[in-house]
């Protein structure tokens, strides 16, 4: 089992003929994801890799193929429009990989997605992978293995690092989700934690946060109040200076708000074991399974 995707998820790829879109479409297909359609305006009628039909619009793709999810690999200037389009076309799940989306664009895209009843993951995220089932996004398939640990993270390669170390130690994952490093995102820690709590295949959760905002603090309270499963955590950015954007648009300490210390102490107060080093997560998880 898994959260947000399963074996029936059928995917339309927005920007399928682009450099990133085409590369990752092949990776997703290779991993077993059902990629049923692609969209590139003006290339409707083409067939990608002799197997995936391409359409001018997502609406047409959904109508013709019944796609239930969308992955977005388009340039930042067009990303919010792609999100609007996917939501409008009626897919249930939208995964926006694109980095660099203006935050002002997301201000209207987020309520639109909500009104249409869709779930957005991202933007500026690696997407999600359910080991052995399928993946949407760019998480590398070769580092995961099926198992009981749910992983939710604001990061990309740091998540890979954690997954990789778990896999090396023989601890598999139920679903790994990167929720994205931007200040405004569609799916937050709490959304993922709630889903993991309800997912019978998940036995424990690793939550990987970073500086900026208060999402981790809110999530900690959720864990305390609503979760029966063990949760362990790590926060990146203990040495980050205030007021500087650390790569991710959302990774910034504003005034005194959003420090790693604050988040780590919120974790501890809510009985979330905190790893000092990414490598420590392995032991913390292992002892709680």
């Amino acid at each position, binding site marked *: 089992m898994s959260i947000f995707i399963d074996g029936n998820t059928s995917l339309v790829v927005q920007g399928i003929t682009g450099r990133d879109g085409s*590369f*990752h479409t092949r*990776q997703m297909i290779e991993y077993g994801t059902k990629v049923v359609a692609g969209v590139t305006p003006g290339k409707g009628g083409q067939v990608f890799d002799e197997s995936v039909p391409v359409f001018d619009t997502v609406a047409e793709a959904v109508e013709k193929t019944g796609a239930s999810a969308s992955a977005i690999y388009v340039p*930042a*200037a067009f990303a919010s429009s792609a999100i609007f389009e996917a939501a409008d076309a009626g897919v249930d799940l939208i995964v926006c990989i694109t980095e*660099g*989306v*203006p*935050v*002002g664009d*997301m*201000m*209207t895209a*987020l*309520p639109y997605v909500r009104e249409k009843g869709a779930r957005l993951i991202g933007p500026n995220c690696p997407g999600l992978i359910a080991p052995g089932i399928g993946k949407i996004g*760019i*998480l*590398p398939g*070769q*580092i995961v293995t099926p198992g009981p640990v749910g992983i939710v*993270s*604001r*990061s*990309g*390669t*740091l*998540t*890979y*690092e954690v997954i*990789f170390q778990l896999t090396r130690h023989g601890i598999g994952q139920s679903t790994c989700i990167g929720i994205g*490093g931007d*200040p*405004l995102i569609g799916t937050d820690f709490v959304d993922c934690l709630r889903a993991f709590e309800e997912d019978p295949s998940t036995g424990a959760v690793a939550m*990987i946060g*970073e*500086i*900026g*905002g*208060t*999402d981790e603090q*809110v999530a900690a309270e959720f864990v305390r109040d609503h979760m029966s499963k063990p949760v362990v955590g790590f926060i*990146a*950015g*203990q*040495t*980050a*200076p205030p007021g*500087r*954007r*650390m*790569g*991710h*648009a959302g*990774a910034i300490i504003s005034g*005194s708000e959003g420090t*790693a210390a604050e988040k780590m102490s919120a974790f501890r107060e809510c009985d979330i074991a905190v790893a*000092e*080093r*990414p*490598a420590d997560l392995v032991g913390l998880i292992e002892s709680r399974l």
Partner: protein
Amino acid sequence: MNIHEYQAREILRAHGVPVPPGEVATTPEEAERIAAGYGGMVVVKAQVHAGGRGKAGGVKLADDAADAREKADAILGLEIKGLTVEKVLVAPAEDIATEAYLGIVMDRGSQSDVIMVSSEGGIDIEEVAATHPEAIRKLAVDARYGLLPHQASALAYALYSDAKLARQAARIISQLYEAYRAAGCTLAEINPLISTPAGEVKAIDAKMNIDDNALFRLPNVEAMRDEAAEDPAERKAREAGLSYIQLDGDVGCCVNGAGLAMATMDLVKYYGGEPANFLDIGGSSNPDKVVTAFEIMTSDTKVKSILFNIFGGITRCDDVANGIVEATRRIVVELPIAIRLTGTNEELAVDILKENGFEAMTDMDEVVKRAVAMAAGTSS
């Protein structure tokens, strides 16, 4: 991106906000000339990307043009929070009856732009928020509708009970919101928003932070970037598409991915070292980027060792290894280098590096310990 007060004032003025006159000077003589043009008392204000200018002596009242020259002379060249003042704004001193605060900030929690007003102006809003939050009136704007007139009006009446002042303030609030949206801001403040004894409401100080991600479609705002006020290494990184922030330590860190880069810095500290920088080279194995990364790190004279931490997910480790080898053929790096490559094709990568005389590891903790030891001189 930060812009200067005088630039924020320009944007506000373009959106109709009443902003008193003011001109920028880079020399005391220029400041004197500007002050003479206005006649009477002027304010001389440091234009620098740092808060707390007033306390640092960066804002001074001058009685006349000669005095303005002296005050500008004192402020120009001043160091405020590590930044040298290169420009001052010279503006006529205003008669002030009341001072208020007006700000808009992108709020992550409510996923909306939040407008804040407080009749306690001219002060640090974070301090007010901490000590007596009831003095701040907030409004979360629903971006689908924008700021509605009655909302601007309600905020204005929270500042002024006098209808004449409130009507002006409501207009200014709406104009500030328009400016905020149009300039891709994540923060815009007028502090103080003053009323004069004659019953006029004006924006005296202005501050704006711009969403870097919005700049591609705002060439006029991008043009306001003050490259002279930027750290040269950070500018070079930005122009090369790298994300770099200089710190005070001696272990230069080069990592793919922002989260992993922060975790690497933290691990340097954990093992007793001090990171010299944050540097995210992204997913690319392009030797050009690696060359630039080396150049940036080695230009920091505090740096004593260089640490590469690369997780090969989609990126192939052998590609990155080749990139490093290629880069070190193009430039000479005198400092000790510790490299860790894990993930896709890591064995291949380690072989390539070793063949070329590099320390090559596969474990994150090990490579960090090694780089810290190198910087401390406790390792060959």
